[in-house]
């Protein structure tokens, strides 16, 4: 009994390491090898009980219009196909139930589906819409964007269907650098 107990306990402890380590490995791999894309964004700052303050990124062009011939359901798992535009920013151009063989894409779910005439308006959940920042920086990021109407963008790495937010930029500078230069925080 004691031996079974210790095996179960060890298995649990391995799982307590394995799952977080898996999360880290996947993201590190994407950050190292993934293709860099930029998404235009606007931030607002909410709070998470465990993970602290973060900036909720509100991306442009995450709403798609597709023909109503195909049925899509809320919360359905899909692949969002991303293409880079001539202005340097990426956009979601289509969705697919099947994993694309090539190109830029990431796995996500449908947030909402709305019928507009003979078209469907699909809103997607964005798996990189949180930028966790220091307790005192997060509210300032939102304030700076709101006050000056400064343009911002998020640098995201995409690899094999996984998209990881690498950095948030204000006036072409990473957020920590931007704050450092201004001597605040």
């Amino acid at each position: 009994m004691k031996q079974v107990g210790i095996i179960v306990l060890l298995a649990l402890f391995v799982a307590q390491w394995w799952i977080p380590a898996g999360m880290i490995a996947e993201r590190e791999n994407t950050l190292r090898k993934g293709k860099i894309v930029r998404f235009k964004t606007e931030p607002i700052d909410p709070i998470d009980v465990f993970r602290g303050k973060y900036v909720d990124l509100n991306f442009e062009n995450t709403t798609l219009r597709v023909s109503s011939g195909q049925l899509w359901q809320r919360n359905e798992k899909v692949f969002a196909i991303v293409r880079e535009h001539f202005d340097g920013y990426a956009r979601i151009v289509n969705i697919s139930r099947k994993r694309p063989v090539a190109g830029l894409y990431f796995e996500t779910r449908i947030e909402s589906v709305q019928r507009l005439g003979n078209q469907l308006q699909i809103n997607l959940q964005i798996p990189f819409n949180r930028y966790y920042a220091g307790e005192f920086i997060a509210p300032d990021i939102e304030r700076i964007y709101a006050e000056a109407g400064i343009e911002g963008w998020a640098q995201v790495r995409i690899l094999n269907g996984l998209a990881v937010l690498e950095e948030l930029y204000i006036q072409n500078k990473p957020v920590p650098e931007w704050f450092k230069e201004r001597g605040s925080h």
Partner: protein
Amino acid sequence: MRKNVLKALPELLSQGVIDEATAKKIEAYYLDTTTTGSQKILLIFAILGALLVGMGIILIIAHNWDSLSTAARLVLSFTPLFLTQLLLIYFWIKKSSSQPLTESVSILNFFAVPVCLSLISQIYHMASGLDAFLLTWLFLTWPLIFFPGSKMVRLLFIIVATWYGCELRYFTFEGDIPMWFLPLIAIPFLHFIFQNENKAQDYLTAWLLGISITIMAGAFIKSYHWLLFPLYILLFSIFYLSGQLYSGNRKKLFWQNPWLSFGQLGFAICCFLLAYDFYWNSKPSAFPDLTTFVSSPEVVQLIFFIFLLSVGIHLLIRYKGWKYIFPELSGSLIMIILIFIFFTLPIPFKTGVIAANIILFTSGVFYLVMGIKEKDFARTNFGLICICAITIARFFDQDISFIIRGLVFILMGAGFFTANYFIVKKQKTT
């Protein structure tokens, strides 16, 4: 008291009142009880300490130490996990008998998981919602609830699981609870019932579990809100039956028989609410389409509860006899049947209101009489509370003179004194 007895021992020995063996026994008894007493206090403080430290670490992590390097933050994220795991393995191998130590370290391990997940989320800006976070946490700490000497983790697990359920079904209305999650909760629940050790922590776990199930039982009601009361009355009847089946000793204190007490209390609250007309007034103008109605999650849940209740009634009759079903359970059954008749046939809404008033009042009288008969303070006072609650509620509904209201309140107060006085007197005579 203890000091006095121990001081008196040499004298009692010299006078030959007790022999040496008895003196040693008395000494051992008092020394033993003081150790248990101080150990209990130590256990409570160890648990409180671990809870505070665990939550404190979570808050410190929530500050987001983004000035530290990724590597440093990763090392930090796994450190509490590593230390608590090492200690738990050590305790297991050494068969540590110190409950304060094992309890506090398992609580810290329970909190080390969200600390690790939070830091990883911050480093990689993971966008998963709070529900996914809580689910991963539950998944990675689930086996801990079976670990001997980690009873507090059971309570914490129930709290976090309820939070997860509320997050999904009440706060965001977003997702469905994954099917594998239900057995994940049910297995420890069954394990706990069959291993009931009749200790304070077990009662506490049962109470908390009861509260958790009560909160979550309404989570699947989305379209047919009128099914809320039948579902809850069924649930409280199932609680009542479980209490009768597993620890049906009537002499137990109110808090020592959680399922029975929770069932009775829940049903009384349902009746009290049904005694107002808001629920009966919400009757939809037409009965819903039968096919959609039958396949709705509410009806599936209703059928499941009816099945559990039938099994419970069957077991109770088989092992204890008919007398435990009536009249305590008959009130719930009448109420459920009445609700269904009311929502299917054209009956004036006052029927339901009057019925609920009568049922609660009758239950109150029943508990009062039984309580006095069995010299049970809890039942007597519960009966009196039921009667008073319904009387007071109706009093504020009606336009009755202050003098009459005052007199009735005085009469009710006198009722409490008299009933309790009679029980004390009865207890003294026997």
